[in-house]
C-alpha cells in the first residue's frame, strides 16, 4: 500500500501528461486543464498520506519501481527514498504546485496553447517529484534535467517574443554548465563507491580523503550554482521571467531553483567532510544574497525585482548550508516557497488586471482597485522583509543567528545588509505598485479589475501559509521542523554551542530593526517624499546605471565566452569549406595531368617549386590564408599529415615509454 502510494505521487501527473499530450486536441481545453489540476491534487493527497506515514514511523523507506540500468558494476534502480526530508519537499512541491496549477486555470485562460501549457506543467511536476524522491544520484539527475527541460519549454512559451526564445536557450545552456559539474560529481562518486545509491554512499563518506570529499562536494555545488542561480551562473533566472507568471512562481521561485539547496542538504554528510567546500558554499551564498539584492534596488519590471529577490533569498539558503545550518536552509526553503509563490502570483494578478503591463513606473494607486491582491501582496512583502511574526522572519532570523553564533561574522554582516536591502526593495515595489498617484495608462485604467476567484483563492491560501508557516520552526533551533528533520539531517555541532537566550533575543531584535529600517527608508523615499528617490539616483549616476544594467555581467559573459566560441566555430568552418574547395580544383588539375604534355608538367613542377618558396615567405609573414591556399592543393595531404602526425606521436611516445 505504502509502495503504491509512493509510486502514485509522480504517477498521477505522468498519466495526465500522456493523456493530455496525446489526446489533448480531441476534447475541450477546460477539461484538459482540470485533468491536469486533478492529477496534481491526487498526487498531493498521496503525498499527504505518505507524509502521515513518515510522521508516525520516522523511518526512511526505499521503494523500487524497477531495475533501470545493469551491466558490470553499475546497477541503478528507478527507486525512491522516503524520509522526512523527502516528506517536507513532497508537501511543498505538490501543495504549492497544486495551488499554482489552480491559479493557472484562471491566469492562462484564453491563452493560445492552453493544453500544451498544462502538459509542460505536469511534466515539470513529474520531474520535480523524481528529483526530490529519487534514492540515487541518477534519478536525481533525471529529475534535475527534466525540470530544466520543462523550464526551457515554459520560458519559451510565448512564441512571439524573441527575448523569450533567447532567455529559454540561455537558461538551458547555463544550466548545462552546472550539469556538467553535477555529472562529474556523479562519476567521481561512482569511481569511489561503485554505487550511486544514497544509502550506499552517504553513510560511507567518512572513508573519503578530505581532498576527494572536497572535489565531489565542489562538483555537486557547481550543479547547484547552475540550478539555483548563484554567482556566477545566476544570469539566466532574471531573463527566465519571460515565461508566464505561474511558471515563474512554480519553477523559478518555489520549487526548481531550490533543487540545489535540497541537493546540498541531502549530501550534507559529504559537506561536513569538506570544510573548504562548506566555506565556499557559504561565501557564494552570502555574496549572492547581497549582490542580487543591490540589483533588485533599481529594477522597474515587477517580475524582475522578484527574480533578483529570489536569487538573493536562495543565497541565504546556501549561506545557511555553508554555516552548517542545514535545517534552517530547508526551513527557509519552505517559507520562501510560500511567500515567493504568493508574491509572484499576486504580481501575476496585478499584471492580469493591467492587461499585461509589468513596468512599475506605469502602476501606482492600485490598492483600492484590486484590494484582495493588494492585501496578499502586502502579506508577502511583510513575510519576505522579515517582519515578525510572519514566516520569513523566523527562517531568515534563524539563518543569521546561526551564522553569528558560530562565528561567521562576515557572512552575518552580508546577510544583515542584504536583509536591509530586501526590506527596502520589497517595500519600494509595494509603494510604487499599490500606493501613491496612479501612473497607469488611461486606456488601461478603466479596465482594471480584480482577478476571478480561481486566481484569488490560491492567493489567500498562500497568504495564510505565509503568515503561519514560520511557526513550524518556532522556537528557533528547537521547533517542530527541527525535531522532524533531525533524524535525517544531523548537524555536525549544533549542540556544542549553547547560547544564552539573551543573545538570541538580541539578534532577533536587531533583525527586526534592520527590516523596519528598510521599510522606513522605502516609506520616506516613495511615500513621504517621492522625488527624493530620483535625487539620490541623480547624485550617483554611475552607481545607478551600473546597477540598472546589472553590473554588465551579461555583456561580460557574451564578450569572453559566447562570442569567442561562435567565432572559433565560424573560422574552423571557413577552413573546412575552403580546404575542400581546393580539393575539387586539385582533382581537376590532377585529371589534366593525365592528358597534358610534358611541357605542361615541367612548367607546373618548376612553378610549383617556386610557389613553395613563395609560400614559405608567406608563412614567415604569418599570412594564414595564403598558407592554406598553398599547401592544401590536395586535401588528401591533410589526411596523410594526420596519419604521419599520429605515427610520429606514437613513436616518440614509444621511445619515451611513459603512460598517460
Amino acid at each position, binding site marked *: 500500500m505504502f509502495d503504491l502510494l509512493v509510486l502514485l505521487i509522480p504517477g498521477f501527473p505522468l498519466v495526465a501528461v500522456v493523456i493530455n499530450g496525446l489526446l489533448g486536441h480531441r476534447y475541450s481545453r477546460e477539461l484538459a486543464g482540470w485533468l491536469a489540476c486533478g492529477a496534481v491534487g491526487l498526487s498531493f493527497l498521496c503525498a499527504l498520506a505518505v507524509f502521515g506515514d513518515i510522521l508516525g514511523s520516522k523511518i526512511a523507506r526505499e521503494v523500487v519501481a524497477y531495475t533501470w540500468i545493469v551491466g558490470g558494476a553499475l546497477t541503478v534502480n528507478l527507486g525512491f527514498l522516503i524520509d522526512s526530508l523527502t516528506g517536507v519537499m513532497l508537501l511543498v512541491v505538490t501543495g504549492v504546485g497544486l495551488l499554482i496549477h489552480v491559479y493557472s486555470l484562471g491566469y492562462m485562460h484564453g491563452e493560445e496553447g492552453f493544453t500544451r501549457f498544462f502538459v509542460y506543467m505536469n511534466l515539470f511536476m513529474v520531474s520535480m517529484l523524481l528529483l526530490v524522491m529519487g534514492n540515487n544520484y541518477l534519478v536525481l539527475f533525471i529529475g534535475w534535467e527534466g525540470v530544466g527541460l520543462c523550464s526551457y519549454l515554459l520560458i519559451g512559451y510565448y512564441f512571439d517574443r524573441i527575448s523569450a526564445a533567447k532567455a529559454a536557450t540561455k537558461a538551458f545552456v547555463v544550466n548545462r554548465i552546472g550539469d556538467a559539474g553535477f555529472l562529474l560529481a556523479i562519476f567521481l562518486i561512482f569511481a569511489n563507491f561503485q554505487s550511486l545509491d544514497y544509502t550506499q554512499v552517504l553513510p560511507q563518506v567518512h572513508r573519503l580523503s578530505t581532498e576527494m570529499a572536497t572535489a565531489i562536494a565542489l562538483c555537486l555545488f557547481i550543479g547547484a550554482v547552475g540550478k539555483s542561480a548563484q554567482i556566477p551562473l545566476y544570469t539566466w533566472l532574471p531573463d527566465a521571467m519571460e515565461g508566464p507568471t505561474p511558471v515563474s512562481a512554480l519553477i523559478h521561485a518555489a520549487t526548481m531553483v531550490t533543487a540545489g539547496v535540497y541537493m546540498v542538504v541531502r549530501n550534507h554528510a559529504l559537506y561536513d567532510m569538506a570544510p573548504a567546500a562548506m566555506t565556499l558554499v557559504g561565501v557564494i551564498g552570502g555574496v549572492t544574497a547581497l549582490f542580487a539584492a543591490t540589483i533588485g534596488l533599481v529594477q522597474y519590471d515587477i517580475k524582475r525585482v522578484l527574480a533578483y529577490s529570489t536569487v538573493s533569498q536562495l543565497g541565504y539558503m546556501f549561506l545557511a548550508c555553508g554555516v552548517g545550518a542545514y535545517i534552517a536552509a530547508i526551513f527557509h526553503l519552505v517559507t520562501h516557497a510560500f511567500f515567493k509563490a504568493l508574491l509572484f502570483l499576486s504580481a501575476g494578478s496585478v499584471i492580469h488586471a493591467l492587461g499585461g503591463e509589468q513596468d512599475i513606473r506605469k502602476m501606482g494607486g492600485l490598492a483600492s482597485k484590486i484590494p484582495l491582491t493588494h492585501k496578499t501582496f502586502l502579506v508577502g512583502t511583510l513575510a519576505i522583509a522579515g517582519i515578525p511574526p510572519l514566516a520569513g522572519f523566523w527562517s531568515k532570523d534563524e539563518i543569521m543567528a546561526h551564522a553569528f553564533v558560530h562565528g561567521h561574522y562576515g557572512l552575518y554582516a552580508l546577510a544583515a545588509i542584504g536583509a536591509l536591502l530586501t526590506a527596502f526593495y520589497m517595500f519600494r515595489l509595494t509603494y510604487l505598485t499599490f500606493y501613491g498617484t496612479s501612473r497607469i495608462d488611461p486606456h488601461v485604467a478603466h479596465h482594471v479589475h480584480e482577478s476571478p476567484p480561481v486566481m484569488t483563492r490560491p492567493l489567500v491560501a498562500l497568504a495564510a501559509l505565509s503568515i503561519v508557516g514560520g511557526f513550524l520552526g518556532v522556537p528557533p533551533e528547537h521547533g517542530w521542523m527541527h525535531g522532524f528533520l533531525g533524524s535525517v539531517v544531523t548537524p555536525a555541532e549544533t549542540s556544542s554551542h549553547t547560547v544564552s537566550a539573551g543573545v538570541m533575543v538580541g539578534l532577533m531584535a536587531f533583525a527586526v530593526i534592520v527590516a523596519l529600517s528598510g521599510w522606513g527608508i522605502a516609506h520616506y523615499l516613495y511615500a513621504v517624499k517621492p522625488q527624493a528617490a530620483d535625487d539620490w539616483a541623480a547624485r550617483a549616476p554611475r552607481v545607478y546605471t551600473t546597477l540598472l544594467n546589472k553590473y554588465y555581467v551579461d555583456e561580460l559573459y557574451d564578450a569572453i565566452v559566447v562570442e569567442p566560441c561562435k567565432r572559433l566555430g565560424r573560422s574552423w568552418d571557413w577552413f573546412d569549406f575552403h580546404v575542400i574547395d581546393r580539393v575539387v580544383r586539385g582533382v581537376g588539375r590532377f585529371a589534366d595531368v593525365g*592528358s*597534358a*604534355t*610534358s*611541357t605542361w608538367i615541367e612548367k607546373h*613542377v618548376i612553378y610549383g*617549386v617556386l610557389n613553395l618558396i613563395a609560400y614559405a615567405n608567406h608563412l614567415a609573414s604569418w599570412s594564414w590564408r595564403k598558407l592554406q591556399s598553398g599547401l592544401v592543393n590536395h586535401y588528401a595531404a591533410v589526411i596523410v599529415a594526420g596519419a604521419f602526425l599520429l605515427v610520429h606521436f606514437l613513436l616518440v611516445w614509444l621511445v619515451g615509454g611513459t603512460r598517460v
Partner: protein
Amino acid sequence: MGNEPVPLNYLPIAIFAVIGAAFGIVSLLAGWLVRPHRPYRAKLLPYESGSPLFMDARVQFPMRYYIIAMLFVIFDIEIVFLFPWAVVFGKLGLLGLIEMGVFIAILVVGFWYAWKKGALEWE
C-alpha cells in the same frame, strides 16, 4: 615493442628516399639556374614527331566507349577466374562446378541488366 632504440632496418630506405628526392630536385634546379631563359610560344607546344599541331590533345570520347570497355573488363575478369579453375577442375569436383556456376550466374545478372538497359545498343 622493438628493443632497438632506432629502427636501423629502415635506414637504407630512408637514405635511398633522400638521395632519390635530392637527385630530382638538384638536377631540375641546376637546369633552371644554368639554362638561358628565353620562353616563346612554340617552346610550350607539345612535340608530335616534328609535325605541326592540328588539334587539341584533349578530346571527348562518347560515353559508350566506357560502357563497352567496362563490360569488356568484367568478362576479362571472368576469364581470369575461369582459366585456373579449368586447370584444377578435376580436383574440385561437383562443388567446384556449382561454385563457378554461382559466380557466372551473378555476372549474368549484371550482363542481363546491362543488356536490358540498352548498354549494348550503339545509338
